[in-house]
Protein backbone atom coordinates (compact mmCIF):
# COMPACT_ATOMS: atom_id res chain seq x y z
CA UNK A 1 0.00 0.00 0.00
CA UNK A 2 2.72 2.41 0.99
CA UNK A 3 4.71 1.59 -2.10
CA UNK A 4 1.84 2.48 -4.35
CA UNK A 5 1.25 5.67 -2.49
CA UNK A 6 4.79 6.86 -2.80
CA UNK A 7 4.83 6.02 -6.47
CA UNK A 8 1.65 7.96 -7.00
CA UNK A 9 3.02 10.99 -5.28
CA UNK A 10 6.17 11.08 -7.28
CA UNK A 11 8.12 14.24 -7.80
CA UNK A 12 6.28 15.32 -10.90
CA UNK A 13 2.86 14.91 -9.41
CA UNK A 14 3.90 16.77 -6.29
CA UNK A 15 5.26 19.61 -8.36
CA UNK A 16 2.24 19.78 -10.58
CA UNK A 17 -0.03 19.77 -7.56
CA UNK A 18 1.81 22.59 -5.85
CA UNK A 19 1.86 24.66 -9.01
CA UNK A 20 -1.85 24.20 -9.53
CA UNK A 21 -2.51 25.12 -5.92
CA UNK A 22 -0.51 28.29 -6.25
CA UNK A 23 -2.08 29.26 -9.57
CA UNK A 24 -5.56 28.55 -8.27
CA UNK A 25 -5.04 30.67 -5.16
CA UNK A 26 -3.65 33.53 -7.22
CA UNK A 27 -6.41 33.31 -9.78
CA UNK A 28 -9.08 33.33 -7.13
CA UNK A 29 -7.39 36.20 -5.41
CA UNK A 30 -7.12 38.20 -8.59
CA UNK A 31 -10.60 37.46 -9.86
CA UNK A 32 -12.16 37.95 -6.48
CA UNK A 33 -10.63 41.37 -6.38
CA UNK A 34 -12.04 42.28 -9.75
CA UNK A 35 -15.45 40.86 -9.01
CA UNK A 36 -15.94 42.16 -5.49
CA UNK A 37 -17.97 45.31 -5.57
CA UNK A 38 -17.27 48.01 -2.97
CA UNK A 39 -20.76 47.44 -1.64
CA UNK A 40 -19.67 44.26 0.04
CA UNK A 41 -17.19 45.99 2.31
CA UNK A 42 -19.16 49.14 2.83
CA UNK A 43 -19.02 51.32 5.85
CA UNK A 44 -21.62 50.27 8.40
CA UNK A 45 -21.51 52.10 11.67
CA UNK A 46 -23.86 49.66 13.30
CA UNK A 47 -21.45 46.78 13.01
CA UNK A 48 -18.26 48.36 14.24
CA UNK A 49 -15.66 45.96 15.67
CA UNK A 50 -17.69 42.79 15.30
CA UNK A 51 -15.58 39.72 16.07
CA UNK A 52 -15.44 36.88 13.51
CA UNK A 53 -18.81 35.28 12.99
CA UNK A 54 -20.79 33.46 10.35
CA UNK A 55 -21.86 36.62 8.52
CA UNK A 56 -18.48 38.24 8.89
CA UNK A 57 -15.90 35.44 8.75
CA UNK A 58 -13.04 37.83 9.38
CA UNK A 59 -14.93 40.26 11.58
CA UNK A 60 -15.41 43.96 10.93
CA UNK A 61 -13.16 46.94 11.42
CA UNK A 62 -13.43 50.33 13.08
CA UNK A 63 -15.85 51.62 10.46
CA UNK A 64 -17.90 48.45 10.37
CA UNK A 65 -16.46 47.30 7.07
CA UNK A 66 -16.41 43.56 6.43
CA UNK A 67 -12.83 42.40 6.81
CA UNK A 68 -13.15 39.32 4.63
CA UNK A 69 -14.04 41.15 1.46
CA UNK A 70 -11.77 44.03 2.24
CA UNK A 71 -8.80 41.72 2.78
CA UNK A 72 -9.60 39.74 -0.34
CA UNK A 73 -9.73 42.91 -2.38
CA UNK A 74 -6.48 43.97 -0.79
CA UNK A 75 -4.85 40.69 -1.70
CA UNK A 76 -5.96 41.15 -5.25
CA UNK A 77 -4.37 44.61 -5.39
CA UNK A 78 -1.14 43.21 -4.02
CA UNK A 79 -1.16 40.38 -6.54
CA UNK A 80 -1.69 42.79 -9.39
CA UNK A 81 1.19 44.98 -8.31
CA UNK A 82 3.28 41.86 -7.80
CA UNK A 83 2.49 40.54 -11.28
CA UNK A 84 3.15 43.82 -13.01
CA UNK A 85 6.40 44.53 -11.24
CA UNK A 86 7.63 40.94 -11.62
CA UNK A 87 6.97 41.15 -15.33
CA UNK A 88 8.98 44.37 -15.62
CA UNK A 89 11.78 43.14 -13.40
CA UNK A 90 12.12 39.83 -15.18
CA UNK A 91 12.32 41.41 -18.61
CA UNK A 92 15.02 43.80 -17.38
CA UNK A 93 16.90 40.93 -15.76
CA UNK A 94 16.80 38.76 -18.88
CA UNK A 95 18.01 41.54 -21.14
CA UNK A 96 20.79 42.67 -18.81
CA UNK A 97 21.91 39.18 -17.89
CA UNK A 98 22.18 37.98 -21.46
CA UNK A 99 23.86 41.17 -22.63
CA UNK A 100 26.40 41.01 -19.83
CA UNK A 101 27.30 37.40 -20.44
CA UNK A 102 27.35 37.51 -24.21
CA UNK A 103 29.01 40.85 -24.83
CA UNK A 104 31.35 40.58 -21.91
CA UNK A 105 33.99 43.23 -21.35
CA UNK A 106 32.76 46.71 -20.59
CA UNK A 107 29.09 45.75 -20.73
CA UNK A 108 29.67 42.94 -18.28
CA UNK A 109 31.60 45.13 -15.86
CA UNK A 110 28.94 47.82 -16.08
CA UNK A 111 26.09 45.42 -15.40
CA UNK A 112 27.98 43.90 -12.49
CA UNK A 113 28.59 47.32 -11.09
CA UNK A 114 24.91 48.19 -11.38
CA UNK A 115 23.97 44.99 -9.62
CA UNK A 116 26.39 45.72 -6.81
CA UNK A 117 25.02 49.23 -6.56
CA UNK A 118 21.47 48.09 -6.21
CA UNK A 119 22.38 45.43 -3.73
CA UNK A 120 24.54 47.82 -1.79
CA UNK A 121 21.65 49.88 -0.54
CA UNK A 122 19.40 47.93 1.81
CA UNK A 123 16.44 46.79 -0.20
CA UNK A 124 13.77 48.49 1.85
CA UNK A 125 15.64 51.80 1.87
CA UNK A 126 15.87 51.64 -1.91
CA UNK A 127 12.16 50.89 -2.12
CA UNK A 128 11.33 53.83 0.12
CA UNK A 129 13.60 56.16 -1.83
CA UNK A 130 12.10 55.24 -5.20
CA UNK A 131 8.58 55.41 -3.88
CA UNK A 132 9.33 58.83 -2.37
CA UNK A 133 10.76 60.01 -5.66
CA UNK A 134 7.64 58.92 -7.51
CA UNK A 135 5.47 60.75 -5.02
CA UNK A 136 4.33 57.72 -3.02
CA UNK A 137 0.96 56.12 -3.67
CA UNK A 138 0.16 53.22 -5.95
CA UNK A 139 2.40 54.62 -8.67
CA UNK A 140 5.28 54.89 -6.25
CA UNK A 141 5.08 51.37 -4.92
CA UNK A 142 4.69 49.88 -8.39
CA UNK A 143 7.76 51.67 -9.68
CA UNK A 144 9.73 50.89 -6.55
CA UNK A 145 9.05 47.16 -6.56
CA UNK A 146 9.48 46.86 -10.32
CA UNK A 147 12.83 48.60 -10.36
CA UNK A 148 14.48 46.80 -7.48
CA UNK A 149 13.96 43.11 -8.06
CA UNK A 150 16.08 42.57 -11.12
CA UNK A 151 19.60 42.26 -9.58
CA UNK A 152 19.43 38.70 -8.24
CA UNK A 153 17.69 37.44 -11.33
CA UNK A 154 20.26 39.17 -13.52
CA UNK A 155 23.05 37.41 -11.70
CA UNK A 156 21.32 34.09 -12.18
CA UNK A 157 20.79 34.63 -15.90
CA UNK A 158 24.32 35.81 -16.40
CA UNK A 159 25.76 32.76 -14.64
CA UNK A 160 23.68 30.39 -16.73
CA UNK A 161 24.46 32.10 -20.00
CA UNK A 162 28.16 32.19 -19.22
CA UNK A 163 28.11 28.44 -18.92
CA UNK A 164 26.84 27.88 -22.41
CA UNK A 165 28.74 30.71 -24.02
CA UNK A 166 31.70 28.54 -24.72
CA UNK A 167 29.65 25.63 -26.07
CA UNK A 168 30.50 24.45 -29.57
CA UNK A 169 27.18 25.09 -31.19
CA UNK A 170 27.23 28.67 -30.02
CA UNK A 171 30.66 29.22 -31.47
CA UNK A 172 29.48 27.61 -34.65
CA UNK A 173 26.60 30.04 -34.86
CA UNK A 174 28.94 32.95 -34.62
CA UNK A 175 31.13 31.50 -37.33
CA UNK A 176 28.15 31.19 -39.55
CA UNK A 177 27.69 34.90 -39.29
CA UNK A 178 24.84 35.30 -36.88
CA UNK A 179 24.86 38.48 -34.87
CA UNK A 180 25.01 38.26 -31.12
CA UNK A 181 21.35 39.18 -30.84
CA UNK A 182 20.31 36.30 -33.05
CA UNK A 183 22.51 33.92 -31.18
CA UNK A 184 21.15 35.18 -27.90
CA UNK A 185 17.57 34.78 -28.99
CA UNK A 186 17.79 31.38 -30.61
CA UNK A 187 20.32 29.66 -28.37
CA UNK A 188 20.80 31.40 -25.06
CA UNK A 189 17.29 32.23 -24.08
CA UNK A 190 15.82 28.76 -24.59
CA UNK A 191 18.63 27.22 -22.55
CA UNK A 192 18.25 29.65 -19.77
CA UNK A 193 14.48 29.57 -19.78
CA UNK A 194 13.87 26.79 -17.23
CA UNK A 195 16.09 28.21 -14.52
CA UNK A 196 14.98 31.71 -15.41
CA UNK A 197 11.32 30.91 -15.11
CA UNK A 198 11.88 29.29 -11.74
CA UNK A 199 13.69 32.41 -10.65
CA UNK A 200 10.72 34.47 -11.78
CA UNK A 201 8.29 32.25 -9.90
CA UNK A 202 10.39 32.63 -6.77
CA UNK A 203 10.62 36.36 -7.31
CA UNK A 204 6.89 36.90 -7.48
CA UNK A 205 6.06 36.24 -3.83
CA UNK A 206 8.79 38.56 -2.69
CA UNK A 207 7.44 41.30 -4.88
CA UNK A 208 4.05 40.85 -3.25
CA UNK A 209 5.54 40.90 0.23
CA UNK A 210 7.56 43.98 -0.46
CA UNK A 211 4.56 45.82 -1.81
CA UNK A 212 2.69 45.01 1.39
CA UNK A 213 5.64 46.14 3.50
CA UNK A 214 6.02 49.43 1.64
CA UNK A 215 2.28 50.11 1.88
CA UNK A 216 2.34 49.23 5.56
CA UNK A 217 4.92 51.91 6.22
CA UNK A 218 2.80 54.45 4.40
CA UNK A 219 4.61 54.71 1.08
CA UNK A 220 2.31 52.66 -1.06
CA UNK A 221 -1.42 52.52 -1.56
CA UNK A 222 -3.17 55.37 0.22
CA UNK A 223 -5.34 54.61 3.23
CA UNK A 224 -8.68 54.57 1.49
CA UNK A 225 -7.68 51.81 -0.93
CA UNK A 226 -8.15 48.31 0.44
CA UNK A 227 -4.67 46.80 0.45
CA UNK A 228 -3.15 44.27 2.81
CA UNK A 229 -0.51 46.74 3.95
CA UNK A 230 -3.15 49.37 4.65
CA UNK A 231 -5.39 46.98 6.53
CA UNK A 232 -2.49 45.74 8.65
CA UNK A 233 -1.22 49.21 9.46
CA UNK A 234 -4.70 50.27 10.54
CA UNK A 235 -4.99 47.19 12.71
CA UNK A 236 -1.96 48.33 14.67
CA UNK A 237 -4.03 51.01 16.38
CA UNK A 238 -6.50 48.49 17.67
CA UNK A 239 -4.33 45.71 18.96
CA UNK A 240 -4.08 47.43 22.31
CA UNK A 241 -7.85 47.12 22.71
CA UNK A 242 -7.86 43.48 21.80
CA UNK A 243 -9.26 43.53 18.26
CA UNK A 244 -6.96 40.74 17.15
CA UNK A 245 -8.90 39.66 14.10
CA UNK A 246 -7.97 42.82 12.27
CA UNK A 247 -4.34 41.74 12.11
CA UNK A 248 -4.45 37.96 12.01
CA UNK A 249 -6.61 37.22 8.98
CA UNK A 250 -5.29 39.67 6.40
CA UNK A 251 -1.77 38.54 7.27
CA UNK A 252 -2.77 34.92 6.84
CA UNK A 253 -4.07 35.61 3.34
CA UNK A 254 -0.76 37.16 2.42
CA UNK A 255 1.22 34.40 4.05
CA UNK A 256 -0.71 31.77 2.14
CA UNK A 257 -0.06 33.44 -1.19
CA UNK A 258 3.65 33.72 -0.56
CA UNK A 259 3.88 30.21 0.86
CA UNK A 260 2.13 28.53 -2.05
CA UNK A 261 4.30 30.30 -4.56
CA UNK A 262 7.47 29.49 -2.67
CA UNK A 263 6.55 25.82 -2.45
CA UNK A 264 5.70 25.69 -6.14
CA UNK A 265 9.00 27.34 -6.96
CA UNK A 266 11.01 25.01 -4.77
CA UNK A 267 9.33 21.96 -6.28
CA UNK A 268 10.04 23.20 -9.78
CA UNK A 269 13.64 23.79 -8.86
CA UNK A 270 14.06 20.28 -7.56
CA UNK A 271 12.40 18.84 -10.62
CA UNK A 272 14.74 20.60 -12.97
CA UNK A 273 17.86 20.15 -10.91
CA UNK A 274 17.60 17.24 -8.49
CA UNK A 275 20.82 18.21 -6.79
CA UNK A 276 19.72 21.54 -5.50
CA UNK A 277 18.25 21.65 -2.03
CA UNK A 278 19.43 18.10 -1.49
CA UNK A 279 15.92 16.93 -1.06
Amino acid at each position, binding site marked *: MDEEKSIFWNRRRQTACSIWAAVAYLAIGLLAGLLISPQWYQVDYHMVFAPPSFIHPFGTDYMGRDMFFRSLKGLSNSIMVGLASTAVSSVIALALGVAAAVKGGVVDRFVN*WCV*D*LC*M*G*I*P*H*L*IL*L*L*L*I*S*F*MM*GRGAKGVLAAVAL*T*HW*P*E*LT*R*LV*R*AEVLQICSAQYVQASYRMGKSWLQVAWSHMVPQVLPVYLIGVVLLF*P*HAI*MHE*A*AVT*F*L*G*FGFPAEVPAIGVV*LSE*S*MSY*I*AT*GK*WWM*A*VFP*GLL*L*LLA*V*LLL*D*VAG*ENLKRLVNPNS*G*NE
Partner: protein
Amino acid sequence: MKRLVKLVLRMASLLAAVSILAFLMMAKAPMDPLTAYIGVNSTISEEAKEEAIEYWNLDGSPVERFLAWAGNTLKGDFGESIVYKQPVLTVIKERFQYSLALMLASWLCSGIFGFALGVLAAVYKDSILDKVIKSVCLVFQSSPTFWVGLLALSIFAVNLGWFPIGLAAPMGKLASEVTLGERVHHLILPAATLSILGIGKITLYTRQKLLEILGSEFILYAKARGEGIWQIVGRHGLKNIAIPAVTVQFASFSELFGGIALAESVFSYPGIGSAVTAAGLGGDVPLLLGIAIFSALFVFTGNFIANILYGAIDPRIKEGGFRG
Protein backbone atom coordinates in the same frame (compact mmCIF):
# COMPACT_ATOMS: atom_id res chain seq x y z
CA MET B 1 47.17 43.56 -0.47
CA LYS B 2 46.39 44.66 -3.96
CA ARG B 3 43.02 42.90 -3.68
CA LEU B 4 42.32 44.85 -0.54
CA VAL B 5 43.07 48.14 -2.22
CA LYS B 6 40.92 47.21 -5.15
CA LEU B 7 38.07 46.30 -2.85
CA VAL B 8 38.32 49.58 -0.97
CA LEU B 9 38.35 51.52 -4.23
CA ARG B 10 35.32 49.65 -5.42
CA MET B 11 33.54 50.45 -2.18
CA ALA B 12 34.38 54.12 -2.53
CA SER B 13 33.14 54.26 -6.09
CA LEU B 14 29.94 52.48 -5.17
CA LEU B 15 29.40 54.81 -2.23
CA ALA B 16 29.82 57.80 -4.49
CA ALA B 17 27.38 56.27 -6.93
CA VAL B 18 24.88 55.63 -4.16
CA SER B 19 25.01 59.25 -3.10
CA ILE B 20 24.56 60.47 -6.64
CA LEU B 21 21.67 58.11 -7.17
CA ALA B 22 20.00 59.04 -3.91
CA PHE B 23 20.50 62.72 -4.61
CA LEU B 24 19.05 62.36 -8.09
CA MET B 25 16.01 60.73 -6.64
CA MET B 26 15.54 63.57 -4.20
CA ALA B 27 16.00 66.07 -6.98
CA LYS B 28 13.31 64.40 -9.01
CA ALA B 29 10.86 64.25 -6.14
CA PRO B 30 7.90 66.57 -6.76
CA MET B 31 8.97 69.12 -4.19
CA ASP B 32 10.77 72.39 -4.61
CA PRO B 33 14.33 72.24 -3.23
CA LEU B 34 13.89 74.88 -0.58
CA THR B 35 10.76 73.27 0.84
CA ALA B 36 12.52 69.93 0.79
CA TYR B 37 15.24 71.35 3.00
CA ILE B 38 13.22 73.40 5.45
CA GLY B 39 9.84 71.69 5.45
CA VAL B 40 6.28 72.72 4.68
CA ASN B 41 5.45 74.31 8.02
CA SER B 42 8.54 76.43 8.31
CA THR B 43 8.09 79.94 9.58
CA ILE B 44 11.68 81.07 9.41
CA SER B 45 12.45 84.56 8.26
CA GLU B 46 13.35 85.58 4.74
CA GLU B 47 16.97 86.17 5.75
CA ALA B 48 17.25 82.71 7.18
CA LYS B 49 15.76 81.31 3.97
CA GLU B 50 18.34 83.18 1.91
CA GLU B 51 21.08 81.77 4.10
CA ALA B 52 19.84 78.24 3.59
CA ILE B 53 19.64 78.75 -0.17
CA GLU B 54 23.19 80.00 -0.28
CA TYR B 55 24.66 77.34 1.96
CA TRP B 56 23.17 74.44 0.04
CA ASN B 57 23.21 76.19 -3.29
CA LEU B 58 19.51 75.48 -3.64
CA ASP B 59 18.86 77.69 -6.60
CA GLY B 60 21.60 76.15 -8.66
CA SER B 61 21.20 73.34 -11.13
CA PRO B 62 20.99 69.80 -9.75
CA VAL B 63 24.69 69.29 -10.42
CA GLU B 64 25.62 72.42 -8.50
CA ARG B 65 23.30 71.40 -5.68
CA PHE B 66 24.89 67.99 -5.55
CA LEU B 67 28.38 69.41 -5.44
CA ALA B 68 27.39 71.74 -2.64
CA TRP B 69 25.82 68.89 -0.71
CA ALA B 70 28.79 66.58 -1.35
CA GLY B 71 31.20 69.26 -0.27
CA ASN B 72 29.33 69.88 2.96
CA THR B 73 28.91 66.19 3.60
CA LEU B 74 32.58 65.40 3.20
CA LYS B 75 33.27 68.10 5.73
CA GLY B 76 30.94 66.25 8.04
CA ASP B 77 27.94 68.55 7.76
CA PHE B 78 24.94 66.52 6.71
CA GLY B 79 22.55 69.32 7.33
CA GLU B 80 19.63 69.46 9.72
CA SER B 81 16.76 67.03 9.83
CA ILE B 82 13.41 68.68 9.19
CA VAL B 83 11.43 66.11 11.12
CA TYR B 84 13.63 65.98 14.22
CA LYS B 85 15.00 69.52 14.15
CA GLN B 86 18.46 68.31 14.99
CA PRO B 87 21.63 67.82 12.94
CA VAL B 88 21.32 64.73 10.78
CA LEU B 89 24.47 63.15 12.17
CA THR B 90 23.14 63.51 15.71
CA VAL B 91 19.90 61.83 14.80
CA ILE B 92 21.69 58.98 13.04
CA LYS B 93 24.18 58.53 15.86
CA GLU B 94 21.54 58.51 18.61
CA ARG B 95 19.27 56.11 16.84
CA PHE B 96 21.87 53.84 15.41
CA GLN B 97 22.87 52.69 18.88
CA TYR B 98 19.41 51.33 19.45
CA SER B 99 19.18 49.76 16.03
CA LEU B 100 22.59 48.20 16.38
CA ALA B 101 21.55 46.53 19.60
CA LEU B 102 18.42 45.25 17.92
CA MET B 103 20.27 44.01 14.86
CA LEU B 104 22.99 42.30 16.81
CA ALA B 105 20.47 40.61 19.05
CA SER B 106 18.37 39.26 16.21
CA TRP B 107 21.44 38.40 14.16
CA LEU B 108 22.82 36.34 17.00
CA CYS B 109 19.44 34.80 17.62
CA SER B 110 18.90 33.73 14.04
CA GLY B 111 22.50 32.63 13.74
CA ILE B 112 22.52 30.46 16.83
CA PHE B 113 19.06 29.01 16.50
CA GLY B 114 19.31 28.64 12.75
CA PHE B 115 22.57 26.83 13.07
CA ALA B 116 21.27 24.52 15.78
CA LEU B 117 18.08 23.72 13.91
CA GLY B 118 19.99 23.13 10.70
CA VAL B 119 22.31 20.65 12.38
CA LEU B 120 19.37 18.84 13.96
CA ALA B 121 17.55 18.65 10.66
CA ALA B 122 20.57 17.25 8.87
CA VAL B 123 21.35 14.67 11.52
CA TYR B 124 17.77 13.46 11.71
CA LYS B 125 17.22 13.69 8.01
CA ASP B 126 13.83 12.58 6.78
CA SER B 127 12.42 12.11 10.25
CA ILE B 128 9.36 13.92 11.52
CA LEU B 129 11.66 16.45 13.18
CA ASP B 130 13.32 17.19 9.87
CA LYS B 131 10.02 17.60 8.09
CA VAL B 132 8.66 19.86 10.82
CA ILE B 133 11.78 22.01 10.79
CA LYS B 134 11.69 22.32 7.03
CA SER B 135 8.04 23.34 6.96
CA VAL B 136 8.46 25.80 9.78
CA CYS B 137 11.40 27.36 7.97
CA LEU B 138 9.42 27.67 4.79
CA VAL B 139 6.61 29.38 6.66
CA PHE B 140 9.07 31.69 8.39
CA GLN B 141 10.67 32.66 5.11
CA SER B 142 7.30 33.47 3.61
CA SER B 143 5.96 35.50 6.52
CA PRO B 144 5.83 39.23 6.25
CA THR B 145 8.01 40.57 9.05
CA PHE B 146 5.59 43.23 10.14
CA TRP B 147 2.74 40.77 10.41
CA VAL B 148 4.76 38.49 12.64
CA GLY B 149 5.59 41.55 14.72
CA LEU B 150 1.94 42.47 15.02
CA LEU B 151 1.06 38.95 16.09
CA ALA B 152 3.87 38.88 18.63
CA LEU B 153 2.76 42.23 19.98
CA SER B 154 -0.81 41.07 20.20
CA ILE B 155 -0.12 37.77 21.88
CA PHE B 156 2.88 38.35 24.08
CA ALA B 157 2.53 41.97 24.98
CA VAL B 158 -1.18 42.67 25.05
CA ASN B 159 -2.76 39.33 25.86
CA LEU B 160 -0.14 37.72 28.03
CA GLY B 161 1.54 40.87 29.24
CA TRP B 162 4.94 39.23 29.37
CA PHE B 163 6.67 41.98 27.46
CA PRO B 164 6.32 45.75 27.28
CA ILE B 165 4.52 47.30 24.37
CA GLY B 166 7.17 49.15 22.49
CA LEU B 167 9.87 51.66 23.36
CA ALA B 168 13.41 50.93 24.39
CA ALA B 169 13.14 51.52 28.12
CA PRO B 170 10.45 51.82 30.77
CA MET B 171 8.96 55.29 30.98
CA GLY B 172 9.05 57.61 33.91
CA LYS B 173 12.53 56.50 34.79
CA LEU B 174 15.57 58.69 34.57
CA ALA B 175 17.94 57.54 31.90
CA SER B 176 20.63 56.85 34.46
CA GLU B 177 18.37 54.50 36.35
CA VAL B 178 17.20 52.16 33.62
CA THR B 179 18.78 48.82 34.24
CA LEU B 180 20.41 46.64 31.63
CA GLY B 181 17.84 44.00 32.34
CA GLU B 182 15.03 46.35 31.46
CA ARG B 183 16.66 47.34 28.22
CA VAL B 184 17.10 43.73 27.26
CA HIS B 185 13.49 43.06 28.25
CA HIS B 186 12.30 45.70 25.80
CA LEU B 187 14.58 44.32 23.15
CA ILE B 188 13.37 40.74 23.19
CA LEU B 189 10.16 40.92 21.17
CA PRO B 190 11.50 43.10 18.32
CA ALA B 191 14.67 41.00 18.13
CA ALA B 192 12.71 37.76 18.08
CA THR B 193 10.49 39.10 15.31
CA LEU B 194 13.42 40.17 13.21
CA SER B 195 15.25 36.91 13.65
CA ILE B 196 12.30 34.94 12.32
CA LEU B 197 13.19 36.21 8.90
CA GLY B 198 16.78 35.08 9.02
CA ILE B 199 16.34 31.77 10.80
CA GLY B 200 14.72 30.00 7.87
CA LYS B 201 17.53 30.75 5.50
CA ILE B 202 20.31 29.83 7.92
CA THR B 203 18.64 26.62 8.92
CA LEU B 204 18.11 25.40 5.40
CA TYR B 205 21.57 26.41 4.33
CA THR B 206 23.23 24.76 7.33
CA ARG B 207 21.22 21.64 6.76
CA GLN B 208 22.23 21.45 3.13
CA LYS B 209 25.89 22.01 3.80
CA LEU B 210 26.00 19.52 6.63
CA LEU B 211 24.25 16.91 4.50
CA GLU B 212 26.82 17.38 1.79
CA ILE B 213 29.62 16.89 4.22
CA LEU B 214 27.95 13.93 5.87
CA GLY B 215 27.69 12.31 2.49
CA SER B 216 31.39 12.61 1.78
CA GLU B 217 33.93 9.87 2.00
CA PHE B 218 35.84 10.66 5.13
CA ILE B 219 32.58 10.62 7.05
CA LEU B 220 31.92 7.19 5.64
CA TYR B 221 35.32 6.20 6.92
CA ALA B 222 34.55 7.64 10.37
CA LYS B 223 31.28 5.73 10.48
CA ALA B 224 33.08 2.57 9.54
CA ARG B 225 35.43 3.19 12.42
CA GLY B 226 32.42 3.18 14.68
CA GLU B 227 32.06 6.83 15.59
CA GLY B 228 28.60 7.81 16.72
CA ILE B 229 26.69 10.33 14.67
CA TRP B 230 27.05 13.12 17.20
CA GLN B 231 30.75 12.54 17.53
CA ILE B 232 31.04 12.80 13.77
CA VAL B 233 29.05 15.95 13.65
CA GLY B 234 30.95 17.52 16.48
CA ARG B 235 34.39 16.51 15.34
CA HIS B 236 34.13 16.90 11.58
CA GLY B 237 30.91 18.55 10.59
CA LEU B 238 30.73 21.72 12.61
CA LYS B 239 34.17 22.96 11.80
CA ASN B 240 33.55 22.80 8.11
CA ILE B 241 30.24 24.54 8.04
CA ALA B 242 30.93 27.18 10.66
CA ILE B 243 32.73 29.56 8.37
CA PRO B 244 30.28 29.41 5.48
CA ALA B 245 27.39 29.84 7.92
CA VAL B 246 28.92 32.91 9.52
CA THR B 247 29.73 34.24 6.09
CA VAL B 248 26.16 34.01 4.95
CA GLN B 249 25.20 35.80 8.14
CA PHE B 250 27.45 38.71 7.35
CA ALA B 251 26.13 38.94 3.85
CA SER B 252 22.59 39.25 5.10
CA PHE B 253 23.22 42.69 6.58
CA SER B 254 21.28 44.21 3.72
CA GLU B 255 18.12 42.33 4.46
CA LEU B 256 18.53 42.91 8.17
CA PHE B 257 18.62 46.61 7.68
CA GLY B 258 15.42 46.49 5.70
CA GLY B 259 13.76 44.38 8.33
CA ILE B 260 14.44 46.82 11.14
CA ALA B 261 12.37 49.54 9.51
CA LEU B 262 9.38 47.25 9.78
CA ALA B 263 10.13 45.84 13.22
CA GLU B 264 10.79 49.28 14.70
CA SER B 265 7.57 50.57 13.25
CA VAL B 266 5.53 47.87 14.90
CA PHE B 267 7.25 48.13 18.28
CA SER B 268 7.73 51.91 18.46
CA TYR B 269 11.41 51.26 18.87
CA PRO B 270 13.40 54.51 18.52
CA GLY B 271 15.94 53.28 16.03
CA ILE B 272 17.11 54.21 12.59
CA GLY B 273 14.34 52.26 10.86
CA SER B 274 11.62 54.42 12.32
CA ALA B 275 13.72 57.48 11.49
CA VAL B 276 13.76 56.47 7.84
CA THR B 277 10.00 56.02 7.80
CA ALA B 278 9.40 59.35 9.49
CA ALA B 279 11.84 61.05 7.13
CA GLY B 280 10.18 59.62 4.05
CA LEU B 281 6.68 60.50 5.20
CA GLY B 282 7.74 63.97 6.30
CA GLY B 283 9.66 64.78 3.16
CA ASP B 284 12.86 65.15 5.15
CA VAL B 285 15.45 65.12 2.38
CA PRO B 286 18.64 65.75 4.41
CA LEU B 287 17.88 62.90 6.78
CA LEU B 288 16.92 60.52 3.97
CA LEU B 289 20.16 61.22 2.15
CA GLY B 290 22.16 60.79 5.33
CA ILE B 291 20.56 57.47 6.13
CA ALA B 292 20.92 56.22 2.54
CA ILE B 293 24.67 56.87 2.62
CA PHE B 294 25.00 55.44 6.06
CA SER B 295 23.11 52.25 5.34
CA ALA B 296 25.04 51.69 2.12
CA LEU B 297 28.23 51.97 4.12
CA PHE B 298 26.87 49.48 6.60
CA VAL B 299 25.95 46.94 3.95
CA PHE B 300 29.29 47.32 2.18
CA THR B 301 31.06 46.65 5.43
CA GLY B 302 29.03 43.51 5.91
CA ASN B 303 29.72 42.26 2.42
CA PHE B 304 33.35 43.22 2.80
CA ILE B 305 33.76 41.13 5.91
CA ALA B 306 31.90 38.29 4.24
CA ASN B 307 34.23 38.44 1.25
CA ILE B 308 37.29 38.39 3.43
CA LEU B 309 35.99 35.54 5.49
CA TYR B 310 35.61 33.00 2.78
CA GLY B 311 37.70 34.43 0.00
CA ALA B 312 36.76 32.42 -3.01
CA ILE B 313 35.75 29.24 -1.23
CA ASP B 314 32.32 28.98 -2.73
CA PRO B 315 31.76 30.96 -5.89
CA ARG B 316 28.39 29.31 -6.30
CA ILE B 317 27.01 31.45 -3.52
CA LYS B 318 28.13 34.61 -5.19
CA GLU B 319 26.47 33.77 -8.44
CA GLY B 320 23.35 32.31 -6.94
CA GLY B 321 22.48 35.60 -5.38
CA PHE B 322 20.81 36.41 -2.07
CA ARG B 323 17.16 36.91 -1.62
CA GLY B 324 16.56 40.60 -1.21
